[in-house]
């Protein structure tokens, strides 16, 4: 329970940093998608069910924040939660390769999703431009950030698990 609460607070923090702090730094060419990193990391650690819940939360936050069709982000983030939750059987601590691959796949999927349903649909056909100028920089930033952030999340996760199991044994 406590772990879920901490994760929810982390998602809220990531959302705020992503929207309020990153835009203030003009030197950044692109910004990492923190919310996506958190969603898939938590899903990868906790499985499908929790992944969907975190995805739902992240998606609703984004949908409420921006006008446009409601549910657009929620739909995607729930699938991120579910899909990455399916990979939880490959979850070993301190094994960073899979999360890195996942971050690339998720990031590209996210950008393609936005491109196809918000741009291609309006006849913006210059895919290579968007790929080169938006998708690749954002993916690189996200992967590099995942490298650091994932370890931090793993550390927090481990601490909280230890705390929870310690408390459970006293109860049982």
């Amino acid at each position, binding site marked *: 329970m406590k772990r879920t609460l901490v994760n929810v607070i982390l998602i809220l923090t990531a959302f705020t940093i992503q*929207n*309020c*702090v990153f835009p203030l730094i003009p030197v950044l060419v692109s910004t990492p998608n923190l919310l996506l990193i958190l969603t898939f990391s938590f899903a990868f650690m906790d499985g499908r069910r929790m992944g969907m819940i975190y995805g739902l939360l992240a998606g609703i936050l984004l949908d409420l924040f*921006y006008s446009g069709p*409601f*549910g657009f982000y929620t739909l995607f983030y*729930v699938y991120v939660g579910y899909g990455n939750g399916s990979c939880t059987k490959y979850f070993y601590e301190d094994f960073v390769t899979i999360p890195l691959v996942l971050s690339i796949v998720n990031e590209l999927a996210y950008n393609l999703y936005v491109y196809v349903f*918000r741009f291609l649909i309006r006849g913006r056909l210059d895919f290579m431009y*968007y790929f080169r100028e*938006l998708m690749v920089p954002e993916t690189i930033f996200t992967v590099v950030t995942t490298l650091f952030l994932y370890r931090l999340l793993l550390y927090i996760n481990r601490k909280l698990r230890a705390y929870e199991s310690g408390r459970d044994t006293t109860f049982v």
Partner: protein
Amino acid sequence: MESKYNRYILIAITVCCLLLIVVTTFTDQWLAPLRTAVGYLVTPIQSGVNRAGVLLYDGVADYSKLKTALRENAELRDQIAALTEENNRLTSEVFELDRLRELYDLDREYMQYEKTAARVIANDSGDWFQVFRVDKGSADGIREGNNVLAGGGLVGIVTDVGAHYATVRSIIDDSSRVSAMALQSGDTCIVGGDLTLYREGRLTLSNIQKDGDVKDGDRIVTSNISSSYLPGILIGYAKDITLDNNQLTSSGYLVPVAEFHNLREVLIITDVKETADPEVGS
């Protein structure tokens, strides 16, 4: 068993989302209370984090700005001299203008709209959309469809309002279309945002009639016939106008007067253009 349930949940959420997407594509009025409620929770956090971020960044930036400021100071002194002289000349012209306006009964001049200043507290994450949020909302008299200005030019339009926040879609957003006209000739045109151009600081300028008289450097303002923008707000200057392949219209680029990459404060016009068609942003 567990995985089966998960699949059902996933399908249920998918159906809900798809339904919501379809419904809200047509109308999202009923979502306003929900958005406002969440706004009460999130806006203060965003506002606080934003302020802290600005303070931190300004501290670092101040030193580097000092050097530039000293150099600029010298340049500006020269400019003041030139401007004072120009001002004298213009002042005398203002008197003349006043007289002429009275003559032509033009006192409903554009820049007399009610305005309110607001601070930008959050931007869209990622680079796909050019949408930002400000810290004033319906409680401050802001309504959906209000025009937003900064740096003397049009910046965007309010697309969504909560009690204490408003979401603004800027004119450089890929889906933005503004009905505009050339100030000198009165030829109408469309100013559109384009993601592939905004990094060069340009927007598209299209649908100018073939025999229209729009030249490089012409001032482009919002048009009288726009359904959602008040008339006569400066947007920018025309550039590289060429005849289209269809030989019927010309198009080119527009260099906006407002600076978009570092927006912090904006002015929101609280008058809404009165039209029969309430649609926003066309």
